């Protein structure tokens, strides 16, 4: 039995070790999230409820239901990604305040691997939510006219958006002092879609709100997705969406890694 304790000669540095750590931590987070019944159920039930709410409750009042479904689906997809990211912030905050994080930090493992794991799980959860929303939308009368190429481009834009949002959530999760403050911090992410072109055209908003709606990152992403799926004009929204998401992603990845390292060494 003592043989089990002989110190093995292994290297903990280099690109291979770094990749291996990321894979290990991703497998961990995916496993944990697949067993986190509350978060998982929320990420399936919530999209369906939101979809039904907007289509059947607001849809009737706003205009023709059929056109409104086509209008509102991209917004709901992004809204759900916001909820997904909020739950990611809470998952990261819970993990960062648990005893496990001390163990992970005392290992020769790059700290970014832990966060990468959380983000991979977040993207997986969001992919599930998005599939559910789109499925529900199709059942409720959503009729996109996108071809395979547009669907692919949509998936790409959404992936970039979800990645950016997930890293941002990871950052908030690390900065938060606990799960409650993580959920408070991520409130903004839930709120921003309402102040965009997601549910009503910005032209209908009061001037101040309209300025916010037109210049915040979610609007170009929504316009891009809407254009790709239903053929509305995309214009400059496409590259604006990519710029916004890429920028947020770069900042959040850097800041989250820094905050995580810093937080440990009080």
């Amino acid at each position, binding site marked *: *039995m003592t043989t*089990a304790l002989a110190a093995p000669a292994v290297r903990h540095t280099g690109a291979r070790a770094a990749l*291996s750590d990321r894979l290990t931590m991703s497998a961990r987070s995916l*496993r944990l999230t697949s067993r986190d019944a509350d978060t998982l159920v929320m990420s399936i039930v919530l999209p369906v409820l939101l979809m039904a709410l907007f289509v059947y409750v607001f849809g009737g009042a706003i205009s023709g239901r059929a056109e409104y479904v086509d209008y509102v689906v991209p917004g709901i997809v992004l809204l759900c990604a916001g909820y997904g990211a909020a739950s990611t912030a809470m998952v990261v905050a819970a993990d960062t305040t648990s*005893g496990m994080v*001390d*163990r992970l930090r*005392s290992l020769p493992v790059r700290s970014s691997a832990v966060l990468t794991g959380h983000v991979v799980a977040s993207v997986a959860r969001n992919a599930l939510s998005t599939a559910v929303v789109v499925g529900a939308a199709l059942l409720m009368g959503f009729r996109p006219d996108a071809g395979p190429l547009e669907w692919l481009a949509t998936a790409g834009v959404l992936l970039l958006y979800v990645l950016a949002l997930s890293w941002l959530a990871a950052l908030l999760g690390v900065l938060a002092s606990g799960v409650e403050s993580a959920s408070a911090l991520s409130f903004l992410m839930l709120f921003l879609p309402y102040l965009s072109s997601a549910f009503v055209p910005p032209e209908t908003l009061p001037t101040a709100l309209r300025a916010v709606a037109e210049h915040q990152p979610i609007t170009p992403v929504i316009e891009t997705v809407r254009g790709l799926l239903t053929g509305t004009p995309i214009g400059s929204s496409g590259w604006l969406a990519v710029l916004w998401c890429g920028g947020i992603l770069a900042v959040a990845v850097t800041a989250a890694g820094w905050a995580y390292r810093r937080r440990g060494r*009080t």
Partner: protein
Amino acid sequence: MLVEATGLCKSFGATRVLDGVDLSAAEGEVLALLGPNGAGKTTIVRILSTLTRPDAGTVRIAGVDAVREPARARALFSLTGQASAVDDRQTGRENLVMMGHLAHLGRRESRRRADDLLERFDLTHAADRRVQTWSGGMRRRIDLAMSLVGGPRVLFLDEPTTGLDPAGRATMWDTIGDLVRGGTTLVLTTQHLEEADRLADRVVLVDGGRVTASGTPEALKTLVGGDRLEIRVADAAGLRRVADLHPAAVVDREGRTVTLPSDGGAAHLHAVLDELRAAGVAVDGVRSARPTLDDVFLALTRPASPSAPQPVAAGTAA
């Protein structure tokens, strides 16, 4: 010295938690940090294991500066902290295999080690259940097992037996004994004096962020005096007479006992009993007591007020 810390200082805000702590452990040695709640033991362990950065002081692990180069030091030790560090929603086996992967052992070796450790810690029967369904003792065991996956040269254990029942504690002690025989260097914290006495080669007493004493358990015991004789006297008059005969004796009126310094030998015992019989003191009973770490602990961490009775030895040697 495999682990060497000098002049560790740490404040949280305005509270000074550590104030110049020095300690060291040689290769293969077991060092116990002993101290009351809030003494700073966990803070010391967190600094040694690179989780907390000291305000001042140095830490070297096998010659590596753990403050400046935490990443290199981390390859040399493992930590089992005071709080449980296990993923509840993974099974025991999954937790262990994950640690193998993080130690870059490869898939097959990770699985083999997980099996070994499950066996060794008597957890095989529950290996494929989520840890969230395990008992506290089982969780403490897997916590330690996870720290052993990478075969560390140095192991930091913060209160390894807290929350274990006597049987669990005995098993943990055996396991720790095995590790030490295998050449692992151990720094552990404990509030159980018996534990320090039993496991440690050397003990560092910590109180209020300072080292108040250190040495082998035996050496520490001589700090509070050598062997002694506890004599239970039948009545108060007898008590007074003994006190007159032995001004250095410690008298406990309620318990009607008198404690005398002794050399532990039978000759001294006979001499004392003869003397008491000659003085007409009725003796109920006699115990020969050795000081325990309890005495050391009480004497050095909470200096007794002059009126307080001398702590009575908790354990007795036959």
